[in-house]
């Protein structure tokens, strides 16, 4: 994700939004931690996570 905003969203603030999102956040939270587990177990490499994936027009602006 390319956060293009002039304002820094804050790393902690972004994670908090995932944790605080209630029902809407359950799946996202699960994925966030699942990815971390995979990373921890070295099933997935760090750079796999970091590398930005093309997301259609959304990242092109």
């Amino acid at each position: 994700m390319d956060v293009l905003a002039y304002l820094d969203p804050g790393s902690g603030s972004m994670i908090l939004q995932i944790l605080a999102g209630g029902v809407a956040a359950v799946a996202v939270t699960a994925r966030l931690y699942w990815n971390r587990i995979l990373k921890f177990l070295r099933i997935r490499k760090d750079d796999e996570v970091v590398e930005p994936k093309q997301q259609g027009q959304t990242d092109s602006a």
Partner: protein
Amino acid sequence: MSPSQTETSPPPEASQLEPGSFRDPESRVFYAGEGVYRALSEEGLSDFKALRETKLFERFTGDGRLVATELLEGADAADGLLAKGSAGILRHERIPFVSYPYEWPFSMLKDAALLQLDLNLAALEEDMILKDSTPYNVQFKGARPVFVDIGSFERLREGEPWVGYRQFCMLYLYPLLLQAVKGVAPHALLRGAIDGITPTQMRGMVSFRDRFRKGFYLNVFLHAKLEARHGDRGKEVKAEVRKAGFKKELIVANVARMRKLVKGLEWSPPEGVWVAYGERNSYTDEDARRKDEFVREMSTSQRWGLTWDIGANNGRYSRIAAEGSDYVLAVDADQGPVELFYRSMREEGDEKTLSLTMNLADPSPGLGWRGLERKSLPDRGAPDLVLALALIHHVAIAANVPVREFVTWLASLGTSLVIEFPTREDPMVRKLLGPKREGLHPDYERETFERELTGAFDVERRERLKSGTRLLYFARPKGAGRPIDLTAAEG
């Protein structure tokens, strides 16, 4: 001005940049003549065009919650206005008098916060979002909040979080929580830091017990903790968040949750303020009646543009002044009566009396980059008429400002003046002098005051109220009035 109307006339040549509008690289406000304009970059312009097509744009500009705006077709902005180059110009409706969150009583900040959140929810419904969350983007027309930063709307990008969440906490939520839950007025903190209170600072100001209060655990405790843990992992966290699939529904859930929290926050002034507020609104003794008449006579003797009522208290005289003025600024150092006055005006749907809390002996200075982003009060618009009723003894005795300094300052505003002077025998003056050493404030005498006043103004009227300890004066700037002789016997 109709919200979506377009016009072809370009803004006049001579323009002046708004020094408080440079943070967002996509838009920049400037003034030309009486007009307020906004230059937009290419991205900014396409975001505006997308906004103009939304239902929210029509709905919120229709009821005045969003500043009236039109796109000037074919107008060019001066070169160098925006680093990215300017692609279009908007013209905005002008707000009569600019104010800042560190001057608002609790309910004004809360109303601005709710407007911010409502706009964000409406924007999200149409796949747009507000890119920031600063209360400096809200202004008041009387007691009605207006969102003025059209440049804040942008098209929602898939996978992005609510970028303005942290800023919302720092400039809206924490100040509101401090006032509502801790009873601490946040004005000095907001004035002290243009970006507001950080999560870590807020965490340091609350107690362990507070984590069980609504909204505190997530927005303060956990927020500060996550910030400390992940503060230097910006890039990784962004990637993680994207990978986890941040969805619009999540932003909507967070904004809606925040709205519920803010809506539930309440603060009321201490009981004594309520009692005094009610009393002063209903007292009927001869002095009060006569004072009302004097103020009414002077403030309706001609049509005034902007009137400042300094030391406005419950706004009794602001209401009277509003009968003869285009716009009234009611200022008082005590947040309590200002809060109650704002609530009354809001209930009445008032759009011409702006109520602010500010200590005149320590007024809002120029702040931000080069001290120009936020302006001092006189820099935002000089008054045509000033009411300074039951004020000078507070300034001269309680705040130790010499009488001459105070009168000179009033004269520097170039304004006409209705001023009240309570003599040393007045009960309130005696109370203020009580704890002071004998012989202090020798300049607080009627003769000294009148000498200073006639030196700086043309005094046209003087009247002593029946109780004998209060005098009222009406004066015009030096050279603009027909002065009377104050040394002659009272008439």
